Every structure is written in structure tokens, then in C-alpha cells.
């Protein structure tokens, strides 16, 4: 279990917001935690995989896509806020995220 450093939540939030702003060509000011990635931004499912890769590299995470996938099936993350929340869980629990209810 990784230790969450001070400022990590803010850093994750900034990266996620910047990512969707850049990829969806939307001003960062227009994004909110309840913005739906598919319906509001015309995003796609690959975006989450790309974000996962970004965070794996940034924090040196030991996490496999299949374990994240098991969690996502039970807890879909459709909004920016939900994606930030799930990212924090992945950073905290890494591969053990699949064991969470």
C-alpha cells in the first residue's frame, strides 16, 4: 500500500483536468467534477487507459490493467470526479484495488 503524500490529491486533480482539457479541446474552466467524459466531452474509453499509464509512470505504481478492470466493472467511473477518486484508490492500493468492495 503506497503512502499518499501531501499534495498528491491536488496533483492528480491537476493532471486529470489538464488531460481532459487537452484531449477534448475544452477550456479547463469549463470542466467540473461532475462533467461526464463520454456524454459531455465526447471522450472515449481509451482515455482512462492513457491516464492510467501516466500515473503508473509518475508514481511508479505496481498495478495491472486487469486488476483495475475488475474494480471498474463493479464501480464505473464516468465523471472527472469519479476518475480522480479512483485514481487515488489505485495509487493507495495498487493491485489490491481488486479486493476492495
Amino acid at each position: 500500500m503506497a503512502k499518499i503524500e501531501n499534495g498528491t490529491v491536488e496533483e492528480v486533480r491537476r493532471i486529470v483536468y489538464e488531460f481532459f482539457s487537452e484531449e477534448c479541446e475544452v477550456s479547463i474552466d469549463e470542466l467540473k467534477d461532475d462533467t461526464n467524459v463520454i456524454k459531455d466531452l465526447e471522450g472515449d474509453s481509451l482515455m482512462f487507459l492513457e491516464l492510467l499509464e501516466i500515473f503508473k509512470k509518475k508514481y511508479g505504481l505496481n498495478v495491472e490493467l486487469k486488476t483495475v478492470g475488475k474494480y471498474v466493472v463493479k464501480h464505473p467511473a464516468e465523471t472527472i470526479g469519479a476518475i480522480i477518486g479512483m485514481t487515488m484508490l489505485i495509487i493507495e492500493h495498487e493491485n489490491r484495488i481488486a479486493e476492495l468492495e
Partner: protein
Amino acid sequence: MGRKVVITGMNIISSLGLNLEENWNNLAAGKSGVAPISLFDASNCETKIAAQVPAGFEAYASTFCKKRTAHQMTRVTAMAFVCASEAIELSGIDFNAVDRRRTAVIMGVVSTGNSSVEKGAASRNRIIKSMSNAIPAWISLHYGIEGPSYSVNTACASSAYAMGLGYDMIRSGSADIVVTGGADSTINPEEINSFNEMYALSTRNDAPRKASRPFSRDRDGFVIGEGAGIMILESEESASKRNAPVIAEFAGYAVTSEAYNIMAPKKDGEGMYETMKLALANTGVDPSEVDYINAHGTSTMLNDLYETMAIKRLFGDRAYAIPVTSSKSMMGHTIAAAGAIEAAITALSIRYQMVTPTINYDDPDPDLDLDYVPNNSRAHKINVAISNSFAFGGHNATIVLKKY
């Protein structure tokens, strides 16, 4: 008796331009789109020339889709997408006002061109960029088209086959509208070198604009082109219901297999003759009614000889009175896109009652003595026209178009 099929929209992207009007104007003016290759360093290739889509394409394409989507497309997929977007706009179709489940997308695709020339090919989106169904997928996704959506590969006849399948769907009543055509680019070192191994390409590097010379005695192979051609086929009832402008009637077609050789056409143009004959029979058109032939006309020794022999056999003495032109003399061979691009040119020829020339025809081959419309376009009365596509592997197609 099936339903009548009409063309209500179309578009071309090629070395001669990024839209239909630009292409037609350059074709009518007899311009060549062939130049030294700039997409990659071709100094080590035997052939160093090609008919490339103008350099402004990427900037132009960026106005049609979001940056993220563009990064998930190859240059070929983007050509098809942009070409389809403008063809659909020309047709005036409002997809909120038609039954999307009765609309199909059928594309002729050999590959999406995810070659070494493609920027970033080795990194992101490799599968999405490479999958050969990407072109119909992006079009159906963007417009919410919910009927059948797929690609067909028969090499240089791919988009001709695609149009034929679209025609069948409308005629049989299983679709009202079909977005069809194809796109291709083989301008990359791997494929240039492979075509050179087969002695298929012109090596007239010192005179690029003179290199594609169909039916001339000194022809030395085809010139690779790239681009996209899109046709919007529609039932006459559907077009009439929404008061759509009709460009021409898609009257019928035939596809055959030569079952002869993986590369060479069947001796004396036997397969080509059978394909043209069957297309006319399928359409109920007598050979005496044909006013214009847009030839496959590759500028290779065998194709041009055999296509000429096949035309003479089918049309008899009248063959000498029918203009036979090769659009490839100006825009090179666009492989999977060629059938649709040349069918679109044929439709424009009917619309404007004018045939575009076979350029570089300045050294006639004594064995090839038809009216190839040398070097200058010409006004010509056209009620019925055919467009030929003859592919490696023996996949043949002939499309029959009529004035509407």
C-alpha cells in the same frame, strides 16, 4: 425488378486537389499531379516519384475532426473521413431525418497505411490506426449510421466492389442510403520497393509529370497515387422524398474473378472482356449504347494492351468511336480508392458532357489504336458510360453509369 439507384453526393481527394471542384478543374485542364516524393526520403528507392495529395491536407483535415480523433486516424483514414464528410454535405443528407438503420457504410480498403511514413506509428493507437475497418467505423461513428458498416479488399478494385455491394443493398431494399468508396496510400518505402521488385512502377524519375503515360508505346509502369473517393448512393425514392439533387444513375455493375494469375491479367484481356460484357448485360445496356469508357489504364505494358483488346472485342468497329480515357495519367494509381475516384470522374463527365484527357499520349503504340482522347479534354455527348477496375489477384469490376 429492383429499385433504381442514384448518386446524390460524391467527392474526390487526390494529388489534383482536396475537393471535387478542384479535381475536376485540374482533370479538365489535363494537369499532372505527379512529382518527386516528399513524404519520405526516396533517394534509395528505384522509383522516386508519386502523385501525392497536396501538402496542405493535414491542416485542412484538422478542420473536420477533433485533434484526439485525428491522432487516432492514419493519413489514409483521415482522407476517407474528410472526403466522406464533404460528399455527405453535398448530398444534403440530414441524418436526423432519415432512418439511420437503413443507411450503410461500405468502403474499399486495402490497408489504412499505418506504415513507417505515418508519424507516431510505433507508439499510440497502433491497433486503432491499423485496423482495416477503421474507415467505415469512423464514418458510422461520426454520423450515427446504424446499418451495416464494413470494408472490402480486392486490391485495385476494392472501392469498385464496395460501390457494387452498396448498389445491391439499395436495389434489394435492404438499405436506402449507402456511403461508399475507398481510400489508399502506398507511398512508403516498403511498398514502393515491393512494387519495384515486380517491375510494376514507372522509373521515369527525371520527368515526373510525363511518367504516367497510359496507352503510349514507351509506357514503363504505373505511378503510385494516393487519395480517396466517396459516392453517396441512394434509392430513387429516398432521393426524391428529400428533393436531393441527382448527379447520375448508378445503373449496374459486374464483378468477376479471373482465376488465372496472382498478378498478370488473363491473356488477351479475356477476363476484362467478360467483366464489361457482364456489367452491360446485368444493367440491360446494349454495347451500342455506351458513349464513354473510363479505363483502368494503368500505364503498364499488359494492362493497357489487354484492356484495349477487350474493348475492341466487346464493341467491335464501334470501339474506335468511343472515347477511352485514363484518369491515372494525371493522378496516378490510387489502388483501393481508384474505382470510386474514377467512377466519380465518370459521373462528372456525364454531368458536364465532357471527357477528360489521357495525358502524355505523345508516342502512340501501334497496337493500341483507340480514341484515348490525347492530352486535351473534349465535349462529348454521354448517356451511358462505364468505368473499369482490374486488380492484382484477378479481381475485376465494371461500373455502369447513366445520365439521369
